[in-house]
């Protein structure tokens, strides 16, 4: 079976001949679209988030997965990784730390490997005085070549509320989540809480879950199977899934390292990294690999088809023998040209239709987000306020709530991304615009390129100015007062800038601001509370429970308000991105038909012999394009096979999502979008 790596390489190789053909034909829009699509696949990352409690061995696991024996990520008995750290491919090793600047705008700084521990670990950077937000590592490791971006996260305990919120915000857009625990100590309460929170994302997005549970350190314990079974049962309970839907992979990173050094098969077997990689790629292939490949293949096919139109037109005109036949054909082509030429003038109409579609989507997003928030608050009322550690340390409770909200927000962003792809595809086919549509029903709809990439809008319309404005608005609201702004600003900017790339940039900033201010507000409140908390000790739990509920009641309203703002921003951006993409497609179509018309005019005169020669030339011209389309069709099948047997969406959920089970009839071909589609019907 082909791997993602092979298919990706083959797909990338297909771009050259088509691009040459586009350049030769002076099809500028097509060439530009090809170049964008190429870059999206070449730069496209599969994000794998590694989560788990402190000192479970996440960094060690990651070093082993990357075959890094030099400890790319620092590990030590004494300290714990306490910063979100990303590792991805780069020509050279480069380590960049993002620090929170004075005005909350992140500042990036390149550092050396020796300095990593200084920023990443608690002992190196106690209390995070450096105000470090993120560490990014690029490495020329061949293990990273296929474009996997690994995200190593701090523990899940909620002590560093901001960083936990970052982790949680990452989750829904992650293509796979590796949850790391180990067989020498049982699951902690904070781990179970994390799993419960993380499962909210799957419900909001209505997706099959992408998590893999990894139990490390099996080399240390003789009988780890009992442990694995009990772990799986607890994980299933926490995530609301059936026992057999939980993939638990017992591994030993140290045995794997031993294998890499010594080559002993017994170490390889005990290390069990083959099983881990298989599990991981199953998830990645199912969730993102097909999406990335599908996007590139669709773009290739589109371009080839567009480039074929003028060639086919010329061929056809040479084949028409009578003047009458030729005239009919010319009339047809001219009619098509006119229709395409009219399209931009029709803008008002189709834009209206599009806005309507997006506003329906915004409604769906709002419902899903509310359902997600309901779930969070239900957990708050039935679980959190009964947990001793939260009653004793309300700041941890705030951190937990912020994290939960981050999950919901991230999930909404991810859902918006997928739904936008669906709207684009369906809109192109069903609206008054009659555009060519993707032809690969087995692959997910390609994502909507972000406006920044499309570049067909004027500078003034680019989202960057929006981002700034949104960010200022959100922070300016200053819900948390001075403390809020301080603690929230950096995190908001971080989430907005780095974590939600592409489509959701504006919304990302809003959302980031939201999370930031939530962390901030509550950080302020927590200070007062902690004080009173210490006095009250644990004497009157019920009274503390009541007081916490009352104090946090306002937070829910705050969240709703931010949610509306975020979705409004998202809505504006969606319309903008989809419009830009549609305009680009119209431009491509126009380019194609104009070229056909020009060719038609040129290919009139000539003897029969000349015509035969001309036909042969045209045949040669179209050959590479035909070959490309054939190859694309073949690769599309293989990419679809990569995703494995089709699954029914929603069958793993517990029915808490607003649209669960309602949307299977929407007729969409991909996974993970049916539920939302159902909301509309």
């Amino acid at each position: 079976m082909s791997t993602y790596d092979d298919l990706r390489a083959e797909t990338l190789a297909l771009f050259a001949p088509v691009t040459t053909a586009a350049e030769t034909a002076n099809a500028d829009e097509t060439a530009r679209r090809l170049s964008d699509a190429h870059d999206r696949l070449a730069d496209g990352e599969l994000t794998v988030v590694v989560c788990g409690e402190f000192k479970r061995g996440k960094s060690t696991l990651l070093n082993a997965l990357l075959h890094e024996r030099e400890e790319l990520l620092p590990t030590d008995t004494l300290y714990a990784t306490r910063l979100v750290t990303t590792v991805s491919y780069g020509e050279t090793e480069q380590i960049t730390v993002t620090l929170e600047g004075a005005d909350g705008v992140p500042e990036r700084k390149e550092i050396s490997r020796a300095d990593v521990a200084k920023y990443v670990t608690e002992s190196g950077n106690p209390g995070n005085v450096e105000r470090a937000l993120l560490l990014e590592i690029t490495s020329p490791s061949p293990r990273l070549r296929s474009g996997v971006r690994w995200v190593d996260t701090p523990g899940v305990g909620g002590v560093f509320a901001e960083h936990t919120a970052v982790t949680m915000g990452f989750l829904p857009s992650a293509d796979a989540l590796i949850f790391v625990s180990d067989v020498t100590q049982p699951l902690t309460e904070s781990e179970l809480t994390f799993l419960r929170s993380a499962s909210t994302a799957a419900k909001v997005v209505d997706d099959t879950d992408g998590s893999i549970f990894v139990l490390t350190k099996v080399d240390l314990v003789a009988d780890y199977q009992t442990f694995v079974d009990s772990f799986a049962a607890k994980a299933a309970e926490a995530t609301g899934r059936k026992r057999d839907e939980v993939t638990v992979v017992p591994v030993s990173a140290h045995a794997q390292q031993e294998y890499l050094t010594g080559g002993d098969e017994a170490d390889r077997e005990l290390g069990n990294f083959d099983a881990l990689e298989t599990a991981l790629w199953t998830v990645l292939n199912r969730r993102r690999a097909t999406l990335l490949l599908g996007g590139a293949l669709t773009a290739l096919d589109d371009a080839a088809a567009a480039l074929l139109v003028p060639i086919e037109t010329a061929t056809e005109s040479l084949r028409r023998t009578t003047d009458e036949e030729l005239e009919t054909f010319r009339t047809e082509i001219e009619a098509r040209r006119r229709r395409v030429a009219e399209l931009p003038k029709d803008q008002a109409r189709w834009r209206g239709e599009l806005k309507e579609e997006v506003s329906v989507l915004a409604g769906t997003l709002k419902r899903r987000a509310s359902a997600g928030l309901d779930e969070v608050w239900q957990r708050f009322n039935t679980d959190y306020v009964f947990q001793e550690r939260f009653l004793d340390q309300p700041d941890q409770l705030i951190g937990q709530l912020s994290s939960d909200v981050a999950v919901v927000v991230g999930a909404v962003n991810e859902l918006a991304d997928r739904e936008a792809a669906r709207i684009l595809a369906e809109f192109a086919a069903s609206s008054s615009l009659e555009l060519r549509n993707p032809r690969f029903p087995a692959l997910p709809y390609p994502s909507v390129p972000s406006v920044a990439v499309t570049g067909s809008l004027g500078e003034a319309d680019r989202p960057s100015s929006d981002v700034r404005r949104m960010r200022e608005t959100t922070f300016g609201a200053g819900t948390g007062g001075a403390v809020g702004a301080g603690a929230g600003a950096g995190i908001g900017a971080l989430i907005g800038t780095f974590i939600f790339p592409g489509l959701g940039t504006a919304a990302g900033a809003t959302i980031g601001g939201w999370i930031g201010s939530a962390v901030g507000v509550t950080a302020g409140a927590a200070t007062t509370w902690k004080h009173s908390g210490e006095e009250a000790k644990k004497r009157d739990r019920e009274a503390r429970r009541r007081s916490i509920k009352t104090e946090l009641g306002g937070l829910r309203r705050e969240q709703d308000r931010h949610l509306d703002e975020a979705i409004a921003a998202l809505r504006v951006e969606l319309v903008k991105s989809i419009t830009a993409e549609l305009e680009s497609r119209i431009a491509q179509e126009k380019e194609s038909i104009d070229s056909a018309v020009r060719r038609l005019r040129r290919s009139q005169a000539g003897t029969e012999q000349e015509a035969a020669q001309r036909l042969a030339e045209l045949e040669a011209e179209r050959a590479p394009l035909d070959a490309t389309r054939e190859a694309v069709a073949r690769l599309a099948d293989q990419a679809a096979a990569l995703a494995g047997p089709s699954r029914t969406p929603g069958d793993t959920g517990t029915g808490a999502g607003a649209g669960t089970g309602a949307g299977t009839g929407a007729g969409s071909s991909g996974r993970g979008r049916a539920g939302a589609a159902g909301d509309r019907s």
Partner: protein
Amino acid sequence: MIRERAGSAFRDADAILAGHPGAAEARRLIAEAGGRFTERLRVALAGRVSSGKSTLTNALLGTELAPTGALELTFNVSHFRYGDEPSLTVHFQDGTEPRRSDLDELARMAVRASDHDPAMRDLLNRVDHLEIAQPIPALLDFDLVDTPGLDSSLRGDSANALRWLGRSAEEVGDLSDRHASQADALILVFDRGLASSDAELLDDFTGSGLSASGPVTTVGALTKVEFYWPRHDDPLAEGRRVAESLMSDAGADRLLFQLRPLASLVAAGAGLLTPEQHADLVSLATVPPETLRKYLRRAPHFASRELDGVTVPAQRRATLAARFAPFGIWLACGLIREGCADPTELRRELLDRSGLTAFRELLLGHFAARADVIKLDRAIQEVRLLPAPPPPDDGGRQDTINRAVAVITALAHQEHAFQELTVLRDHYAGRLTFSAAETAEILRVLGEEGSSPAERLGLPADSKPDALSARAIDRLDHWAALEQEHAHSGPSRTAIPVVRRTYEILLDEVSGDDA
């Protein structure tokens, strides 16, 4: 002796209350507090759920007594004490008469609980604690109290078991808290710390209200360090490194007298070493060390596969690995190769190398040596809590109670040992402002490094009485001079005459030996 003086104070208080029928309850409580004083020192183990408290309890007992088998039983506080006849006494929360039976009852209860016998549920539901008596030498020094855990968030199987019992996690947590705080001294059990920072780990304890007594009555055990092997050749050394960082960087020294790493599984395994296990270890010791190491660093394979040059069957290897952890087997085989083949000797060596022997000595030195003061301190604290606001017409009852209480609380001012305790507490709370050298001297002379006169004076154990007297006089002069200077303020100023007085008493003691 402090014990006699305290005993007489309690008798006096009782006499004051004797003629007042309205003060019967106070009389009973004072008698109870006084009675506790004559009992053995009570040391409780506290820690998060699954931090290895029961394993450590078994290791300290040198046998398997803690009911680790049935989950339903592990929610109870177990109080282990010395008794000539093994027995089990079930104490109830509702004041029902305690129920005494033979020790086999424990196993029967476990079976019935596992079978979810409703009658057993009703019984367990009312249990306050289980008292288990055994003629074990280890229990001659102090009683051990194993608590289910501070972490009230019990999930999964535990939650099911609790549901069956009709108990809440909070209730179990409260019960643990109560028993831990009623103990005279505390062992805080840390596993290797699944926490973002050491400070967070400590929060678990500081938030629990258990730290009130502070380092004077609290030591820490860092358990499960055997799992540092084979990453670290000497897991105990790595454990010390972690413990030191916890103590200094994370401020555990405000909470704990000392934090010691313990290979608790190895220690528990050593205590229960069977002849068959011993024979298996001897056989494994014949495997070349590097080969054995390779086998052991793949524990699951060690416990299940055919291994070249190993005659011990896989099943028995699995038992060994579960009992001793790979590090314990490695350690035992090393010792056997070095000639330590006799089971008794091997057991002793394993206990030494697992850190348990030193830990026991720490408990004896730190707790047992000042047991009387610690217990009296607790009794006084309990008695102080007695007086309630007087009702309008109580016929002088409250006044009588107050007088009785005063007789006992006066001990705190009269007994020098108490003032020493106050100095120690002030030190551990960071309230003293002496130089590093003076601080070290205070801790030393107050017995934190050993109770013999030589140790307290910082002199070699074989020092002559003359040398001891000379040093005592020298230090006495120093502290007397400090007292004159009024060099310090606050608690430090209060501490100076106490230290001076300690030297005076010590001087009497060494001169007395002289005479």
